[in-house]
């Protein structure tokens, strides 16, 4: 295994990795191509017969996150998107400031949207307040934003990172089968890349005061599992997660099944940059040490 700090240092020194702000990482050269290739392979892994592919908006209304109970779950991560106020005095203040860049923060209009913290919220918001006559599976992707403060680390924990997700909306049995299949396919995919994966029960870092209760319930009911890829002999990274929401989003967004009951949902999410890091930890920063990525996506079916 290659120590990840040495990998990041090597990529940075040769200019293939840089940050425009802490946790906002760019890639180019061979590692940029690797990231593209892994994203294509994971994208192919997630689609299949009967799966809708959506291009979602890059931002989400704060009201949609409110409906998802986001502000009592993970408010500490949220990145809102505000534009500059069109008020003439404020514009003049910015334009004539000694440092317009620094003056911008004093001229922001109230934010109405957030940069999405997870892609799947768009699916529940778009299907809100309706009846789904049959189960649906939706593949979505995009750049997600979670500000985790001092924990930010290039490729490992980005403020911005690339997430590919499939969401299942249907009966509890539909979701159970979807997640079970997803665990197997993701594990097989990691194996085909030569990355030995393990699957572990997990919980989200919910915000206090009921955070501990939510996390304990999540773990007790095995509602969240993670696919861990090794970074070294002792440390793994959660490169994919398998989440059973039960009827939480069905109730929150008023999405009902044909029987009139709130639907169950589940999602499978892949963090692309973490797959890149696990690959680099296994094979090193130099592309001549990388195996060829052939036939890594199972051809049988989809989710």
């Amino acid at each position, binding site marked *: 295994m290659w120590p990840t700090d040495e990998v990041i240092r090597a990529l940075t020194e040769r200019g293939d990795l840089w940050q425009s702000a802490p946790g906002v990482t760019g890639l180019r050269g061979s590692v940029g191509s690797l990231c593209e290739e892994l994203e294509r392979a994971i994208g192919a892994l997630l689609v299949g017969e009967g799966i809708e592919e959506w291009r979602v908006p890059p931002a989400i209304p704060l009201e949609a996150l409110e409906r998802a109970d986001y502000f009592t779950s993970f408010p500490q991560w949220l990145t809102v998107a505000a534009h500059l106020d069109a008020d003439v005095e404020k514009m003049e203040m910015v334009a004539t400031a000694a440092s317009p860049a620094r003056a911008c923060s004093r001229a922001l209009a109230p934010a109405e949207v957030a940069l999405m913290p997870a892609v799947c919220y768009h699916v529940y918001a778009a299907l809100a307040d309706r009846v789904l006559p049959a189960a649906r599976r939706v593949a979505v992707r995009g750049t997600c934003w979670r500000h985790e403060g001092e924990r930010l680390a290039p490729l490992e924990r980005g403020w911005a990172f690339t997430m590919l997700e499939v969401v299942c909306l249907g009966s509890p049995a539909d979701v159970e089968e979807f997640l079970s299949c997803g665990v197997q396919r993701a594990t097989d995919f990691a194996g085909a890349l030569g990355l030995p994966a393990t699957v572990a029960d997990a919980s989200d870092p*919910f915000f206090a005061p*009921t955070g*501990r*209760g*939510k996390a*304990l*319930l999540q*773990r*007790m*009911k*095995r509602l969240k599992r993670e696919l861990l890829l090794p970074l070294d002999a002792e440390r793994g990274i959660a490169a994919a997660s398998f989440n059973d929401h039960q009827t939480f989003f069905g109730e929150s967004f008023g999405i009902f099944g044909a029987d009139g009951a709130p639907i169950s949902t589940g999602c499978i999410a892949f963090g692309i940059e973490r797959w890149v890091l696990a690959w680099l930890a296994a094979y090193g920063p130099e592309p001549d040490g990388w195996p060829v990525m052939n036939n890594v996506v199972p051809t049988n079916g989809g989710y």
Partner: protein
Amino acid sequence: MRTTVDRERFIYELVAWLERRLAPPGMTITPTTVLFEGRLIDSVRILELIAWVERATDRQIPDSRIVMDNFRTAERIADVFLEEAGNVAD
């Protein structure tokens, strides 16, 4: 060692507490009622339940012991945590 009387009293008091805190109108909780079916226990109630058991056994429950199987029913809670407390404290 804990006695049979201790266990019966523990279960009786736990069921009474569960009835007060968890049971919706018209529902009866018994020592064998499965607590994690439906929406009996939410993120607040689980903490209250853990706190109740910790107070009753005078022993902190580590997160590693907070698994579904150990909290399945009032009887199961007694079997797991009363026994553990007895082994340590007595």
